[in-house]
């Protein structure tokens, strides 16, 4: 990483983290997800412990929803794992939600503050500027996601759901959190950069960029309805799709972030 990228990266973090709304979103959202996840899975686990076992019909219905992952598990353990994966899917939304908030303020903030022209008048290259913006938004989002998942799994272990936590550390979910989450974060930032070039209000940019969460929300709904199960193959396909999508979004963003475009075509720049 060269001196110019480091300088912009440092500026981004100094500036955006002084924005109370961004800081609140970066801290509150993962905290909420941890409380929701641990509360739902841990609470269900505690409620089912000592309760009469599930009927055959109930267990069969649950297996239909949870699929292969419940092989060899009794009804209660299957329910915990099913809920655990649903909550983990919720955490996969963090790398999409958080960077869009960050990027919306970081890019639209440059426009409203009229700071882009002096910045573009320096010898910084478009790719360096964009790289700094993407890293500035994606790195904290990924770190917060990983931290949130760690807290979630740790919370489950503390509530006596260590088995569920260990089951969630499957290769598929490790790949999802370790590889797919950063790719989602980069895609989210690039989408926010593209949206930000057309709007002048950070909240509008944030709301429009929020649309990128929709596909993942549909996956969450699909899994909760038993339409499909997120497994290693699905994560593999998602990684490949995200690599291609990120490259395409990066290409569009570089074109949009070009000096000429920013100064002559960006709304309000």
């Amino acid at each position, binding site marked *: 990483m060269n001196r110019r990228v480091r300088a912009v990266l440092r*500026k981004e973090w100094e500036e955006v983290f002084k924005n109370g709304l961004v800081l609140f979103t970066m801290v509150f959202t993962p905290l909420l997800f941890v409380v929701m996840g641990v509360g739902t899975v841990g609470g269900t686990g505690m409620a089912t412990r000592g309760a009469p076992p599930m009927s055959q019909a109930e267990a069969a219905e649950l297996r239909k929803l949870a699929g292969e992952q419940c092989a060899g598990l009794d009804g209660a353990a299957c329910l915990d794992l099913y809920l655990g994966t649903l909550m983990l899917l919720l955490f996969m939304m963090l790398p999409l939600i958080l960077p869009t908030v960050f990027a919306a303020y970081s890019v639209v903030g440059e426009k409203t503050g*009229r*700071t882009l022209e002096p910045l573009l*008048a320096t010898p*910084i290259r478009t790719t360096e500027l964009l790289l700094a913006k993407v890293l500035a938004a994606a790195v904290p989002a990924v770190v917060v996601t990983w931290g949130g998942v760690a807290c979630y799994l740790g919370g489950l272990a503390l509530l006596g759901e260590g088995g569920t936590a260990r089951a969630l550390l499957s290769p598929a979910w490790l790949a999802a959190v370790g590889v797919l989450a950063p790719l989602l974060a980069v895609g989210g930032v690039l989408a926010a950069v593209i949206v930000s070039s057309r709007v002048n209000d950070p909240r509008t940019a944030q709301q429009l960029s929020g649309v990128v969460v929709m596909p993942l929300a549909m996956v969450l709904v699909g899994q909760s309805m038993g339409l499909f199960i997120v497994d290693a193959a699905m994560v593999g396909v998602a990684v490949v799709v995200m690599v291609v999508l990120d490259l395409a979004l990066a290409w569009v963003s570089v074109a949009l972030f070009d000096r000429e475009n920013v100064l002559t075509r960006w709304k309000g720049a």
Partner: protein
Amino acid sequence: MIETRRLTRRFGELLAVDRLDLDVARGECLGFLGPNGAGKTTTVRMLCALIAPSEGSARVAGHDVVREADQVRRKVGILTETPGLYDRLSARRNLELFGELYGVDDVAGQVRRYLALLGLWERRDDPAGTFSKGMRQKLAICRALLHEPPILFLDEPTSALDPEAARLVRDFVGELKSQGRTIFLCTHNLEEADQLCDRVALFRNRLLVVDTAASLRHQTYGRQVEVRLRELRPEHDAAVRALGLPVELAAVGATLRLRADDPDAITPAVVRALVLAGAEVQAVTPIEHSLERVYLEIMGGQP
């Protein structure tokens, strides 16, 4: 230091800059004057390698603005119309960022130097958002100078400033000029341009005229002298006309206005003739038309 040849920029159907031919010498301060929407900012952006020309070429500090854009950006400092500061960052951090981006060797030293020079050192750790307009403008000037550019583009450096702050900024621009920097000054303040600039260019999408302010005055109004009398009588006027000098005469109340190519040569003869004709001469004053009047005269004649 700055050479443009048929420099043109279009935005779709709109012709913002039309075949601009301009040369600015090293150490010269050029005032670039024109109404809003005349294409001044577009010209500055092309010369700072921020946007590309549609046609024509420009060289700044010996570098082509299209092919050697990076080198151009390293050699120019730009003060944009709005200061464009990061309000949440301190004055020091605003400057350190740009020092890093311009690849300045001793960033801390340069930041200290310019903050002290412009009287902002005591406020170095305060967020830029808490600064007054004048302080913000001074901070933006520091930013434009950090990498010691030989060429400065100043877009409305004193607009929206109170008279005291405007004077401070103007004095500092004067100092920069005395350091031998080339300055390209866009301004609506014609008095400022008259005070600071070696030459002025009047521009409205195309270059109308470029010359020294004195020469523009001379070309537009000729050189004029006003002779104020206690009372102007027909015989006084007749006495001057009888001299047969190459001079235009106009009477305004008790004042006789002389317009000539070289008033210094004819004024003594005119005064002598008036005194011999019985006139009581109270004052002889050369008339200095303001640059504003020249500007309005030239701009007024343009479509």
